[in-house]
């Protein structure tokens, strides 16, 4: 018997990184060894020549949301501010495999965002038009077009929430999350960054309003600058310097099926019926559910969310009926009031903040890594993250992406 398509993923390299003891001092300490933290360290070293950098991870590298997301990459957000940073990110994704010298399996198979009501259609067309004027590839496709792109979608007008059309971003797609994280980690390590695992930050030391060190489960580490990239744990860290954040940490669940022959050529997302699904490289269906309503750090959600999601998924994809749920899990997403991130300086000198990505974190990895490194290196926001200040909640200059990100990703 021949092996099925997708059976062979590229091998990981024979060497990834060392496991050094932390030094007593670094120019920059990045707190949080997820995708954003590692990417930030990589760009600090590569673009800004700052290599005396440690990434501190309380568990295992890239084991939080980076290991738990559904790997959708797209840039078709509504507002100029969002499309700026996400499109910057998408462009970096397009060159990332070469940049990192790592097979990240970025597959630009396109993303369909389905519209199920007349208002969905208006909102979708609005977003497509905004995207195009922002230089982002975006199309509005009718139900027949949806069927052409993804034949297994049920486009019958007789279903409860019929598909009235979709936005389509051809350059969007998926990547393999571990490969991305490890690609960044290996490259950062090669540039001199220390990746320190099992090292939990327990305190932030400041002197006269300026950060001086981090206290960790492995001792005190002096730091010229500290960059927080801790996603769901950002509030806990920020509180160590008395900084309150307008974010809430929620469980977000996802699941996979067993390996199946290819049936689903693209990525389909539906805010209205709370489904997003793709078929990953090996053949498993990868699906995300809605965010659980309550705050939670437990990396587990409630099962009825998954049951509801399955019901919705089968309305859209009747052929999934006898696929099997193989594994479920949850991440902790840090949700901000306007569903947009907070990236930039803080009132504490030398302390930089990157959080609030909600469900958008994975796709932003290269973009925010690059911009956040710039922000840290220059002590000044990069133009792409300038709109995403903490101050916007005071002035009211929100970037409300609920329409684009309420459920989906």
């Amino acid at each position, binding site marked *: 018997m021949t092996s099925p398509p997708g059976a062979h993923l590229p091998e990981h390299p024979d060497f990834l990184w060392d496991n050094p003891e932390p030094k007593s001092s670094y120019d920059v300490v990045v707190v949080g060894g997820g995708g954003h933290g590692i990417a930030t360290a990589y760009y600090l070293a590569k673009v800004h020549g700052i290599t005396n950098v440690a990434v501190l991870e309380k568990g295992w590298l890239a084991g939080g949301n980076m290991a738990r997301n559904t790997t959708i990459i797209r840039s078709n957000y509504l507002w100029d501010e969002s499309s700026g940073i996400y499109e910057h990110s998408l462009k970096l994704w397009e060159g990332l495999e070469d940049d990192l010298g790592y097979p990240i399996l970025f597959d630009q198979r396109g993303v369909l965002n389905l519209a199920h*009501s007349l*208002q969905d259609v208006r909102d979708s067309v*609005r977003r497509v038009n905004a995207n195009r004027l922002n230089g982002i590839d975006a199309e509005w496709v009718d139900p027949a077009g949806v069927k052409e792109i993804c034949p297994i979608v049920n486009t019958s007008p007789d279903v*409860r929430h019929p598909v009235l059309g979709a936005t389509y971003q051809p350059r969007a797609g998926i990547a393999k999350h571990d490969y991305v994280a490890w690609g960044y980690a290996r490259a950062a390590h090669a540039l001199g960054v220390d990746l320190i695992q099992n090292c939990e930050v327990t305190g932030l030391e400041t002197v006269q309003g300026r950060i001086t060190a981090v206290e960790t489960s492995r001792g005190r580490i002096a730091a010229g600058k500290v960059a927080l990239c801790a996603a769901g744990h950002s509030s806990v860290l920020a509180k160590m310097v008395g900084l309150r954040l307008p974010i809430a940490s929620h469980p977000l669940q996802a699941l996979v099926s067993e390996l199946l022959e290819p049936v689903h050529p693209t990525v389909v997302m539906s805010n209205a019926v709370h489904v997003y699904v793709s078929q990953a490289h090996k053949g498993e269906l990868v699906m995300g559910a809605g965010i659980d309503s309550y705050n939670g750090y437990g990396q587990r959600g409630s099962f009825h969310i998954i049951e509801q999601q399955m019901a919705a998924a089968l309305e859209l994809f*009747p052929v999934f009926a006898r696929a099997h749920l193989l594994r479920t899990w949850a991440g902790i997403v840090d949700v901000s009031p306007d569903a947009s991130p907070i990236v930039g300086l803080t009132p504490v000198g030398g302390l930089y903040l990157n959080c609030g990505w909600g469900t958008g974190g994975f796709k932003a990895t290269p973009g925010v890594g690059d911009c956040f490194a710039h922000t840290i290196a220059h002590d000044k926001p990069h133009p792409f993250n300038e709109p995403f200040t903490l101050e916007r909640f005071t002035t009211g200059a929100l970037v409300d992406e609920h329409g684009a990100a309420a459920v989906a990703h």
Partner: protein
Amino acid sequence: MSFRTDTGGAIDRNTLLRFTFNGVEHTGHPGDTLASALLANGVHEIGSSVKLGRPRGVVAAGSEDPTSLVQVEAPFSEPMLLATTVELYDGLVARGLAGQGKLSSEPDPARYDAKHEHCDVLVVGAGPAGLVAALTAARSGARVVLVDEQNQAGGALLGVDEYLDDRPSAEWVADIVAELKSTPDVLVLERTTAFGMYQDGFVLALQKRTDHLGFAAPASVARQRVWRIRTRQTVLATGAHERPVVFADNDRPGIMLASSARTFLHHYGVLPGSRAVVFTTNDSAYCAAIDLAESGVDIAVVVDARPEAPARLAAECAARGIEVRAGQLVTGTEGPGRVTAVQVGDDRIACDALLVSGGWNPVVSLFSQARGTLRYDAELGAFVPGRELATVRVAGSATGELDLTACTRQGRDAGAGAAAAAGFTSGSQVPLPASDSRCTARSGLVLWRVPGNDDASFVDLQRDSTVADVLRATGAGLRSLEHIKRYTTIGTAHDQGKTSGMIAAGIVAEALGVELSEQRPTTFRPPFTSVSFAALAGRDRGDLHDPVRVTSIHPWHVQHGALFENVGQWKRPWYYPQPGEDLHAAVLRECRATRESVGMMDGSTLGKIDVQGRDAGEFLDMLYTNMMSNLKVGKIRYGVMCGVDGMVIDDGTVIRVGEERYIVTTTTGNAAKVLDWMEEWLQTEWPHLDVHCTSVTEHWATIPLVGPKSRAVLAAVAPSLDVSNEAFEFMTWHDTEVAGVPARVCRISFSGELAYEINVTAWHGLAVWEALMAAGERYGITPYGTETMHVLRAEKGYPIIGQETDATVTPQDLGMSWAVSKKKPDFIGKRSFARAENNRSDRKQLVGLLPVDPAVLLPEGSQIVETDRLPEPPVRMLGHVTSSYPSAALGRTFALALVRSGHERIGETLYVPVEDSLVPVTVTESVLYDKEGARRDG
């Protein structure tokens, strides 16, 4: 050649079942699994491995099997099932898989459902420990649920021929099951796998109810059911899985776990081959060797990795002529497919089966899901449950205990403890059985692998992951088991590492030179075994997917050919096309009829909330941006609601019914949200206010009657009502009778026309609607839907919440500063209006747009730019088109839009990119029709 024994096994030898596997017809018996039937026919090669394409067979007899993946093709195609868990039925068609299944393109005709169950004690696993636990709890009077994944109770006892209390164990099992089934409030669920354990005693279990019936499965019976069990106490008697030892070429078909071979013998009457080698690290495999030898299998040798073989068992082997070699290892096997020989030391021993035992792994998945901590038991070489949880007990071999009597004692203690914790005192004690078992699994040697060709030493047979892969991962710098799992993909396949996970952890610990007690095992995630998507969706599909809400007048709309728009869960008439009409034609007709004569619509879906109490006015003053407390009884006022952030969240009318009573309306989509919003403020912030809110949305049917002839129509059906403009002013209401039915009539207008809104109890809705139709016939009364309603209001510049607003729009942006009170000291959202961003001059504001070419219809959602040529992206956008229609009244197209500094731009020409062109448009005020309001009074 048949490998079926002459006697024994829980199969019905008198009945023959025909089935087809990989295109070849075979036979089996009721009681077989697909795997046992294939093995009985000498078929060991089931499928092939996903990466390397190596043949794969049957390793284990149950749900832990890592390799026997099949696609069932008939009666209905289903991917990725284990041959060891597919019960055989007549006509089964299946094929082996290469690690990847295929979804049917046909719709699944089966039913699925779910059921809630509540109990005091849930016991998972009907092996000896679970049975005793369940019976002990049942005798205490507790409500007990016992679930077990197999088609009959017995657990590990099904795989042995041991005697309990001097009689066949099956009899002991049957007695307990019989007592359980005859005890009130005890539910025994077979073929039911507890697959997920959640917070507060919530356990999900999947029952396979008709799969085993094959073609005979009744269509009306749910094929699978998800049991949502809420239990106070749980006893996990989930047993243990035997684990293999890794050695070179350990992946060939014919290489099987020793206890599984024993299960195939005793439960199915199937021999694993003709000549077998047994390779073990502990005593338990000796019984497999002895039992199989007694059933006619030539046991070539028992290879015991321990330096010394157990004397008594070795003697029993000797008595049967079975050679035992202690202190030796299996170092390799030969193929090409199914095993033909094994290498033991320097000896090549021909065989067609290799039975392996590397010890036992307690099944701790559910315990771990319940957040129980695990502890490494060095003697057992496995993770075992650590501290007990307050509501979860573990009993039997799931604890690592492998002696049967001790397991049942644990079961009894756990059953009694669980019942006591749930408030029940124990009944008569369940006696513990005495076993005649000769083999215990303790005193084993912990051996993960035999050194050899690492590239062919498979740790995860389904993922084709080898020892070499593990060593490459540790060599790459990886330390965490989670990283190594991802690097090697061990444990990520269909079996989720049930047999491979522990071994991988052991090999990693050896490679890194660390103690396993220091390693954190990878997380056990639900589900324990895979669950079909359809089972999880249950009955929430098709017509039952999402409730369709309909009004009392709905049947009329259906009868009269309305097309419907989904608004939330409601079905609302969108428009009523006449033969040959499309949307535009129908809407132009409906609009024209309404503006020129009279139209009406079903407005029953509007949210309606009765607000009563001494402080009702004060309360509404806080919720709405404008003043409601000074509204006179008998009058009506339009109101806007904002969130605390100052953004518009809803609008509607407020009518004052009495000094202390108002009825407010909400938009259709926000009815529940607004009531919740009110309750939240009342209950959590202002409990001192004397106000009560009650939803009356569905109590009332609401019919807007609209157009210059509406007065005449109303007069015809409401003879006791003075409908004159003087007696019945705009924004007032009257209680009267309409068509002989008590009604409340409000004079409000969402179209600019003379209009009335007639409210009657929903029971009367249809009759009153029909009466209005009859009374209006002479005026050509025209029913209209949401689309016409949208056009009529847009011509007047009235916004629709959710269409003109998107959570970033203030009342001021909508040009509704008139509805924002300057007098009130506070209302929700007021403070936000003072923020910097709210006072920018370039906020987006609601305006009208008139395409310079009056025939051009702007697509809704179009963006608006300043220049007649597009610069390179990113292009500065000024706003977007929120609504756009052809207008019968205006004789042209028009649009509403949110435009940056829109109020200042009136008269300017802007551009709307449509496809590849730029459409010039003139910015106007948002009110385009009857700016003077002359039509309001008819």
